């Protein structure tokens, strides 16, 4: 019995020895770091910016894209964008995906590196990325939380105020200027960079080119500021060739609901499938017709007709064209459901490798080509052609660019065709490019229309940018088919912005209401214009 007592007291004693000293250590998640190299976050931000099917479909295609009439046919794009029906779910997609993801991380990168001379390059790169991210947000929504956004941890601001777009734009220029000037090849190395592999010189050009894009946004609201900023950007050095383009690389991987490496635009085109037998989209006749008119060799690089087969293996574009004799017939009118295609044309019979195949109208139509809709297609964040088009407009406005508007325009057309090889499309022969350029000189009195319509072509896979520049420039002149007036919620017009997300009204009530008060009739309407979109 003594033995047992001894055991009991030994156990009691050892219980007493267990103290709480190791609690601090125990409460540190062993799978997480407390100080991550910010370079590792850059790669993630770059992936997420073009890898998300969620916001690409909802904002890129359902609204912006459907209105810009590059592509149509898919159910929700026609039902909501095509008919002008509001959906908080779709309007809010970019906002609710990017604030807690890209914004959170880029703000953290900037905050953690801001006063550290050994991290000045990654700080500058972060600031350029931050401007890129916020510019897409403010262009779509208008006044948004900017200065206090993403600061929930650093400043404990849970409900950030809404900043005026003008103030945001002013800060964009300050930030880009400072960031570009801080970039220095002799300083810290940018290690995890998909766009430029850490090439500081090209980061500078990207920063300046972005500044040029944002400067051009202001032509309606503040032409002087637009000129000053555009000229400053050009003077500091913008992109000079297709090699300077900011391109995100993607891989062919099955979609799982978030960003996993594939191209978000392609997931949207292919209804998230890597092996789909067809795309759910068709080229819109507005887009096809303009390229037909200008003899644009990109037409059949953007769009191809395929048989409905696994992985769309059989390309029948030429056979269909031979039968119909018109690419216009191989496109769907804007705001059309794909199932309505059969009412718009009759089936044709073609001969495919000796087999007779009947093709309904739907399969006569051009689908997003295998090049641009491949899940591993690269995504062009900003192209050299775009930069030359901005400079063409700047030169047309007699701002200092160093070359004439025509020179910029020609260069832009050439670069625009050649950049299709980024997608792995076969090279367009130099003579075809030259003919295309020569056939499309700037025409007196139509320069702005030509330049901005080319920007619209350039943004065929970036509906949001096309939509922003359309609002600014008014080109191309798009006719919105108010196909279902009974359900239309936009007065039969293309709306001018996206409304604020429901969660802001629920959880950031005072701030968002302040922003709404600044709008016409104090109403958060998608018919209201953002600041730079002056009437």
């Amino acid at each position, binding site marked *: 019995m003594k033995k047992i007592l001894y055991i009991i007291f030994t156990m009691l004693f050892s219980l007493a020895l267990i103290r709480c000293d190791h609690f601090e250590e125990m409460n540190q998640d062993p799978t997480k770091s407390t100080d991550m190299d910010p370079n590792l976050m850059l790669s993630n931000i770059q992936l997420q910016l073009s890898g998300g099917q969620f916001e690409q479909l909802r904002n890129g295609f359902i609204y912006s894209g459907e209105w810009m009439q590059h592509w149509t046919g898919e159910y929700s794009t026609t039902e909501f964008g095509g008919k002008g029906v509001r959906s908080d779910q779709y309007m809010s997609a970019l906002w609710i995906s990017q604030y807690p993801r890209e914004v959170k*991380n880029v703000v953290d990168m900037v905050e953690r590196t801001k006063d550290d001379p050994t991290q000045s390059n990654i700080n500058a790169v972060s600031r350029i990325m931050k401007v890129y991210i916020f510019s897409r947000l403010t262009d779509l929504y208008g006044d948004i939380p900017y200065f206090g956004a*993403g600061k929930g941890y650093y400043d404990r601001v849970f409900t950030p105020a809404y900043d005026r777009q003008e103030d945001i734009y002013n800060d964009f220029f300050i930030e880009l200027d400072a960031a570009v000037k801080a970039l220095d090849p002799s300083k810290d190395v940018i290690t995890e960079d*998909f766009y430029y592999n850490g090439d500081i010189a090209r980061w500078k050009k990207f920063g300046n080119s972005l500044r040029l894009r944002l400067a051009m946004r202001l032509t309606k609201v503040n032409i002087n500021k637009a000129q000053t900023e555009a000229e400053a950007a050009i003077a500091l050095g913008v992109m000079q060739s297709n090699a300077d383009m900011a391109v995100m690389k993607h891989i062919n991987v099955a979609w799982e609901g978030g960003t996993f490496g594939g191209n978000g635009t392609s997931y949207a085109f292919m209804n998230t499938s890597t092996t789909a037998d067809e795309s759910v989209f068709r080229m819109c006749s507005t887009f096809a017709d303009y390229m037909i008119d200008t003899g644009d060799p990109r037409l059949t690089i953007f769009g191809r007709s395929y048989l409905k087969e696994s992985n769309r293996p059989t390309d029948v574009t030429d056979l269909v064209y031979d039968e119909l004799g018109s690419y216009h017939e191989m496109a769907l009118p804007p705001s059309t459901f794909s199932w309505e295609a059969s009412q718009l044309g009759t089936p044709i019979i073609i001969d495919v490798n000796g087999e007779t195949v009947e093709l*309904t109208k739907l399969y006569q139509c051009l689908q997003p080509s295998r090049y641009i809709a491949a899940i591993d297609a690269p995504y062009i964040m900003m192209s050299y052609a775009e930069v030359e088009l901005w400079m063409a407009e700047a030169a047309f406005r007699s701002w200092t660019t160093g070359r004439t508007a025509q020179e910029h325009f020609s260069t832009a057309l050439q670069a625009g065709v050649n950049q299709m090889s980024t997608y792995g499309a076969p090279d367009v022969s130099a003579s075809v490019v030259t003919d295309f350029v020569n056939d499309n000189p700037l025409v007196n009195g139509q320069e702005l229309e030509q330049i901005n319509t080319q920007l619209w072509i350039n943004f065929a896979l970036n509906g949001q940018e096309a939509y922003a520049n359309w609002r600014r420039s008014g080109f191309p002149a798009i006719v919105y088919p108010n196909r279902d007036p009974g359900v239309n919620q936009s007065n039969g017009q293309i709306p001018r912005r996206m409304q604020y997300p429901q969660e802001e009204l629920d959880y*950031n009530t005072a701030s968002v209401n302040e922003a709404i008060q600044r709008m016409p009739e104090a109403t958060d309407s998608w018919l209201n214009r953002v600041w730079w979109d002056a009437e």
Partner: protein
Amino acid sequence: MLLPMQLAWAQDSPITISGKITSADDNQPLPGASIVIKGTISGTVSDAEGKYSIKAEPGSVLVFSFVGMDSQEILTGTQTTIDVVMISNATNLGEVIITALGIERNKREIGYSVSELSGDQVSTAQEVNVINSLSGKVAGVDISTTTAGPTGSSRVVIRGNSSLAGNNQPLYIIDGVPMDNSDMGEGAGMWGGYDMGNGAANLNPNDIESISVLKGASASALYGARASHGVIMITTKSGKGQKGLGVEFTSNYTVEKVLSKFDDYQTTYGMGRDGELPTIDNAETTQVAWGAKLDPSISVPIYNGELKPFGVVNDNILSFFRPGSTATNTLSLSGGSDKASVRVSLSDLRNKDIVPNTGLQRNTFLINTSVTLGEKLTISGKANYINERVNNRPALSDNPNNVGLALLGIAPNFDQQWLSKGYKDKTGNYVDWNGGNIYRINPYWSINEIENESLKHRLMGYLQLNYDFTDWLSLQLRGGTDYTNFRYTNFSPRGTPTRDTGSLDEIINTVSENNYEALLRFNRKLADDLTLNVYTGGNIMYYRREQFSNTGLDIVLEDIHPITNFTRQRSGYAFYEKQINSLYGSAQLGYKDTYYLEGTFRNDWSSTLRKGMNSYFYPSVSGSLVFSNLLPDQRFLSFGKLRASWAEVGGDTDPYQLNLTYGLLDFSLLDKPLGQISNTSIPNRDLKPTQTYSYELGTELHFLDGRIRIDATYYNSRTVDQILALKIPSTSGYNAAIINAGEITNKGVELSLSATPVSTSYDLKWDVMVNYTRNINEVKELHEQVKTYELSAARWAGAVIQAKEGNAYGVIVGRKLKRDDEGNIIHNAAGLPMATGAEDQAVLGNGVHKWMMGISNTISYKGFSLSALVDIKVGADIYSMSNALAHQNGTAEATLEGREAWYASEEARLAAGVSEESWIPTGGYIGKGVVNTGTSDEPVYVENTKPVNPQDYWGSLLENSPEPFIYDASYAKLREVTLSYNIPSKVFTSTPFQSISVSFVARNLFLLYSNIPNVDPESGYNNGNGQGFEYGSIPSRRSYGLSLNVKF
């Protein structure tokens, strides 16, 4: 064999039998116990010393009964003395009950409310998940299940929701050792998921001796913060009291069938759009019933190109489900002596769910043993091993594999069986059946091609030493564990929509909770009338959860699916641990068996809070007065007690809430790692412990010798400084901020009335029990910056469930339809209803029931016993997205109105060659309500007369406001019916059998009352705090069958 013996006895003359009846609780004699010869009216009653004497023929059966005690039946032989020790009946008064820390106490002493159920009450009409059997049986306890059925979890809330971030579920203690009740997966949310079941679901009902429910903070204060939502204490059967070898065999077999029906389903129009017959281009409108009028003489193409008649198909949806079945067999052996006891049980459960290919198999093994060495030392231990395999858990909510969602919109002309053939083409590819909606997979693909499987190994047990220093001082040391290993795989073959290259998800969870406890007990009579019990002890709780996850994409060999058969793999690892060290104690004073006072304290040190904040102390005090002892002896009020208690409980939080941390995504891209901040909530270094203050007042009254028993409680609790992840706008960068905030109050009453209106010596007995619970909840305060807390969201359907300042917990919030002053819905010029602006969010309902009632009646006659339980819950609302879609898809009956007129109008328009804009429709659906003919400032409302396409009307409704689809979720269910027959022991006297009983059992037999069409009001898709959403529910199940119990 039996007959000659009975004849032999019948010839014997009666002999006199005498003896003494005592109570097992205190070895005191029991006066007034009744002794009846079974099957006769002759009997007697024991005297003041518990003695009795009766004349009986040898071979007759004597029935000994006493209020509050289990009746006993003893077969007489030639003996003339039969002493009987009566054991208290756990469900009745005067019993010894088990309170916190496993301390057995007489119920009369206790100053707070405790309810107890016997094992029979949860094992006769058993469920796969034993916790569901508590439903309606205990006042104050709200049990809800998910639409997942037998493989799913259940939600138990005691005395209302008080926590925003925690799960509001009670702590489970099994044989004194805390059990892990966590979910094995995240459950289903807005975008779908699977219910992986929770811990309490694994127990074998036949192993349960009793269940004690400690409801208030005073009862559970000694268990600390985890018990602040109450405690469910389960005691398993042991071999105690069994002399020699006892063998028991129990077998249950039940059949499960679909309970809910599609009772709002039109059978006039078929698949298609705009009143037109489906064409080959439009043949995938399987889930759209806006087509032409049904006409069985017409044939139309369906998704796979086949032609089918366009007529009504009866039972076209629910025929998908099969009859399910559950077979449970339990064998137990028990034995013991004065010094030792052991019980071993083995069980096997096989369940086939109503969802084809879904099933569960569970084996349990339990050994309970105790041995006393010498005089002072007792060693006891338990090991309970559970092995549970679940095949094809049903996907829930918005998961593309949810068969409920896929079946939901099927048009009346379409037989779901047509989906079973041709859902894949010759090369095995998925065939589109619903117009490219990849988020609703063909249900036959879901059940036949997609496979999920889980296997759980679980070990619960303890080792315990008790050492009695003296007869008033003893020490108990115990180490207990609950260890679970859970592996889950979900395989989708190539071609599965959204998983088109094939995928495998694999999760391995290892969860363990270990508790080491020391308890010193002091128990002494200080004076004749004064007793003192003191307990003091300490506990170390260590919890650990580890998760390995793997996702494989791009399958190589189609016929096998280990993770290595996928070219792309992503793996994850998560780890979570916490520790709480505690010291606690309790002192109870009793005076004259009439006055009782108890005080407790506990101090916790938690690893989840930072130094300086992580130690917190909390006390409780309770008292009771058995006032009937002060009254002169009288029959009317046989027992009366008042009780009162007050308690404070502190609480900690989850680990890793204090610091900002960074992690990598579980894949890299082109050899680059992808980093990010890993917190989705803003961390907070300065968290304080949460505090809950509560008090309760109660009374227990027994009238007419216990024939009528009333237990009433009023409680009031207030929780402050809650640690929670406050939903904040994502513009802050985060979805939530970890803060101390909020004040939530719950007050309510619990009434429990039991009565025995009839009890005759003819063995006829009628027992009634009624439980009533009313809880009033208010979210008093949240946070200075944010006034609402999101509990659950279905944003794609325009609603969220929130805790909102000034409202009751769990309100359903969304946009309302615009109405004029008279409450008429305002339509726009196009004739469609308008919703209020997005900024005007209104409370549309509440997902928590206001009151609940359980009514049970038991009638026993001779060996028969018939019992029925009706479970009533009233006052909650549910947003039925299934019904919203039924309207949008045109399957609801309301969508018929105006179709014919609209199609006629369209025909006339086309004949006239007029465009839609310039045509004035001659008919259609006319929205009920008004239209504004004035200005927005000076509105003039006149009745809306604009006919619209019903398809547009019902389509626009869901886009605008959830309001029309929020239903009253009140219901009354016939929850349980049992009819048991104890075969008289004389039938098998000379056999080894000691008792045999056979029962007909049924659960969830009928919905007696419900206000929701098509779905069962009990159709939540998860067990989380945000109750009140229903979407794509699998039909609820009714079960009935037989149960056999044999003792050797």
